[in-house]
């Protein structure tokens, strides 16, 4: 066993002094004076943490207790992330026996791609420490980091003893990320069992047995965030305040609107639109108002494409609108802005298709009828403010999807706009559609379409070549029932054929509950629920259909995931995956 020999000398006072001297932003108790720890003795750890012999059996009661515990650990993790060590101590019993956060012998050191090093520690061979020793080990691990960016202590499973004096055994996952003293990116992954006691309404951990403790490190980040120096920085009201409280989401589009060869960006927002024009000096300047796309705001998906075949990039912006009595429309209709070739836009009527209301999210450009005029598929979601999905697994009360067929230009070259032919094409689906992606999946020369639906199964619309589509999702193995949020095609296996990446929602609580429900529900339902909690999906093209890539191959472990992007981050010849993630993170400030 290897452990620090000077642990008794490592006092809170020293840790705090180090923190003050070397670590901007390093926390500690805001006003409290450091205290002398008790002598840090080596303690015997139990071989395992006993499971309750009279466990609470009601799933609901267990989940209530687990959730209260999980909430308590969220609060603890935030205190620890801010490095208020003296305060964090209050979550541990004075009788704590635990594996420390540092001082274990190395089991292996692995060189991973891109200069990443992974060290696995033989934590199970280490002796235990008491509460002060444990807190010292956390100080030792984190005290000198430049920033602690993320601190998660998640309850992956728990069982509780019945009776008044309640205690429980939990499966705990620890995940810490940040920037260490030398500027390296660090990530700590721990897993273990813990015993928790509820005393006077408060949870106290009194035993912690780690069986996994790994650290990954890279000397520098892969990406540098440069929004502020490039003119793209924007911040607006905190989510949940009056100015920013709608549950509809604003997208982004890239294109060369002024024909100068670099990439401009259109970013619709709830407060204003942005048209960021790329400048030669590497910055962008917002010219939305000057160039005619400043309003209306609150757009969702947006796409650049040449709708009138005049050689420049026009802009379609999705909005959420809905039918009212008397043929009127609530909300906002989708817009098409025509480019004059120099990057000045005019809000055009857009034909009958753009007079219809859609609760539009992702817009997907494709030429579904092969006539050389680009058409647009509109994902119709639902109005979350007034209606609710009528099922969690196969909701059918969403807003209809649209297929905006491009009508081309008249004899004078005037753009005629679009007509909605979704019904005739057989794809006026009323699932809660969030996202779509198009490719010629069956290689027959026409454009097919995959649509990811929330609260249900997804659709792979196979183009019949005659202006209609049939659903091939079952045959092709890409139903992917769940909460579909995003979809992209790309060759992830390096065989030349296009695979499919689908982002979904998943949750720790969902998996935890499922673990307990296993005996109470039938296998089919359990498998479905398990799928709903599993994460993203990768479907690899395998002959004439797709096959789901097993979860063990990775690449799917997101939580509430949104947009996937498939690209080669390290130029090594294969496509990697980036995926936006998370619903609403409510903290005002992060003390990075």
């Amino acid at each position, binding site marked *: 066993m290897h452990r620090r020999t000077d642990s008794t000398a490592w006092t809170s006072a020293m840790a705090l002094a180090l923190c003050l001297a070397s670590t901007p*932003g390093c926390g500690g108790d*805001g006003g409290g004076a450091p205290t002398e720890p008790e002598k840090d003795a080596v303690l015997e750890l139990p071989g395992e943490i006993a499971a309750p012999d009279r466990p609470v059996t009601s799933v609901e009661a267990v989940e209530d207790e687990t959730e209260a515990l999980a909430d308590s650990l*969220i609060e603890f993790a935030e205190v620890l992330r801010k490095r208020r060590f003296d305060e964090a101590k209050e979550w541990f019993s004075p009788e704590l026996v635990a594996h420390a956060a540092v001082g274990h012998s190395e089991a292996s050191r692995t060189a991973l791609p891109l200069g*990443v090093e992974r060290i696995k520690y033989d934590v199970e061979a280490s002796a235990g420490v008491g509460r002060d020793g444990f807190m010292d080990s956390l100080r030792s691990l984190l005290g000198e980091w430049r920033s602690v960016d*993320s601190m998660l202590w998640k309850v992956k499973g728990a069982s509780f003893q019945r009776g008044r004096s309640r205690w429980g055994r939990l499966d705990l996952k620890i995940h810490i990320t940040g920037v260490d003293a030398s500027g390296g*990116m660090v990530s700590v992954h721990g897993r273990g069992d813990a015993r928790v006691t509820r005393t006077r309404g408060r949870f106290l951990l009194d035993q912690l047995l780690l069986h996994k403790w790994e650290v990954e490190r890279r000397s520098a980040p892969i*990406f540098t965030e440069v929004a502020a120096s490039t003119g*793209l*920085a*924007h911040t607006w*009201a*905190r989510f*949940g305040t*009056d100015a920013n409280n709608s*549950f509809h989401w604003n*997208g*982004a589009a890239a*294109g060369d609107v002024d024909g100068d060869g670099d*990439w401009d960006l259109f*970013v619709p927002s709830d*407060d204003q639109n942005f048209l960021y024009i790329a400048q030669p000096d*590497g910055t962008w300047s917002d010219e939305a108002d000057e160039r005619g796309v400043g309003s209306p705001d609150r757009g969702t*998906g*947006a*796409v650049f*494409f040449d709708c009138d075949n005049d050689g420049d990039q026009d802009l379609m912006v999705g909005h959420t609108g809905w039918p009212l009595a008397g043929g009127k429309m609530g909300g906002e209709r989708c817009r098409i802005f025509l480019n004059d070739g120099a990057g000045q836009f005019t809000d055009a009527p857009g034909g009958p298709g753009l007079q219809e209301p859609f609760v539009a999210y*992702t817009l997907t450009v494709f*030429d579904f009828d*092969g006539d*050389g005029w680009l058409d647009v598929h509109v994902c119709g979601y639902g109005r979350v403010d007034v209606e609710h999905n009528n099922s969690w697994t196969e909701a059918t009360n969403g807003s209809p999807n649209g297929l905006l067929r491009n009508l081309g230009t008249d004899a004078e070259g005037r753009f005629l706009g679009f007509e909605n032919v979704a019904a005739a094409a057989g794809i006026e689906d009323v699932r809660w559609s969030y996202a779509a*992606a198009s490719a010629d999946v069956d290689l027959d020369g*026409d454009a097919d379409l995959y649509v990811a639906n929330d609260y249900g199964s997804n659709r792979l619309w196979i183009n019949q070549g005659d202006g209609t589509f049939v659903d091939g999702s079952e045959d092709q193995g890409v139903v992917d029932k769940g909460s579909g949020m995003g979809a992209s095609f790309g*060759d992830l*296996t*390096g065989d030349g054929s296009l695979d499919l990446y689908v982002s979904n929602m998943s*949750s720790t609580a969902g998996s935890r509950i499922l673990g307990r429900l296993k005996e109470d529900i039938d296998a089919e339902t359990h498998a479905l629920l398990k799928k709903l909690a599993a994460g993203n999906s990768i479907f690899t093209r395998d002959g004439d259909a797709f096959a789901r890539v097993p979860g063990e*191959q*990775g*690449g799917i472990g*997101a939580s*509430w995931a*949104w*947009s996937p*992007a498939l690209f*080669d*981050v390290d*130029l090594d*010849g*294969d*496509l990697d*995956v*980036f*995926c*936006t993630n998370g619903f609403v*993170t*409510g*903290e*005002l400030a*992060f003390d*990075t």
Partner: protein
Amino acid sequence: MVASSCSSAPESGKFAREEVGNDGFLARHNGQIFAEGRSFSGNERDKLFLNDGAGSFLDLSDLSGADSPNDGRAVIAFDADDDGDVDLFVHETQRERHAMYRNDLGTAPGFVKIKLRATTGNAEAIGAQVEVVAGDRKVSQVLSRGAGFISCQAPELIFGLGGAPAATVTVRWPGGAVEAFGEVTLGARVLLVEGASEAEAYGAAPRPLPDPKPRGLLVSVGDRIAPFEVLDAAGAPVLIDPAATGERVALNLWASYCAPCVAELPLLEEWDAGEDMRVIAVSVDAPSDRTRALELLSQRAPALGVHLAGDPRPGVRSIQDVVDLARLPLPTTLMLSPDGTVEEILRGPVEPR
């Protein structure tokens, strides 16, 4: 389905339990939990998965520098600076942030950049599938405009060569015609026109993205700080004009949970009481921590004015036009000249002057 994924909820799991059930969680809790600064499926950071070439992935999110917790929605992966690697633009929901991630891995393994023009179908060749073979690696991409989630990609495909000196390129055009364009060498930028059979090179137009501003700051040395709004002790908005004092100003950003910040409050108070400098100390505490911040301020530096970072209001410059609260190291102190120009940026505790 997300039954309980709140992340920084400080008090109870009440809302999370109520959410289980199809009764309009979002609408009912809108303006409640989020207004309080609480999370729902929060602190779930954006993900980066590295492909091993055979379809297995390594999760590098934590080390990516692009794992923002600010609830990303749209993402565009494109070569923003024309240096040959792929950068990321992310539109985030929390505070409507725009994030631009410059890829700093370098282009040593080599790349080719491809634009397309069709002559038989849609001229932009949307839906075309391009296959590139470089050494023992093969990979295909499709030209998409509108995929992922509410994201429109740039009409340019970037292929890594993995160290190979050249690659062979084949296009499956919309309509199904397959055309070989032969070999393209490392670093090439080419336009592939349907029917031409030969790649047409075009020149690079690099526009390096400037290095980031000092972490957490939206201003640099030399920038003048225009008037901005904060909250007073009662939560009422107050406009602060650093130039109004006609004196040098120390603009200090602090938080109750930051020990060095709290420790230096008396020194800042001393500066403020001096003859040649005014101190504007702004607490960036979350609403839930503001009471603690006020207590600490009254204990440690009762003579300092109370300034709290609040939520920005439409059309009004706020402290968040000066600093990015999500990335700001604490304490940070901006030393301003009498006309409000940033002269010096102090990171960490200030020294006695």
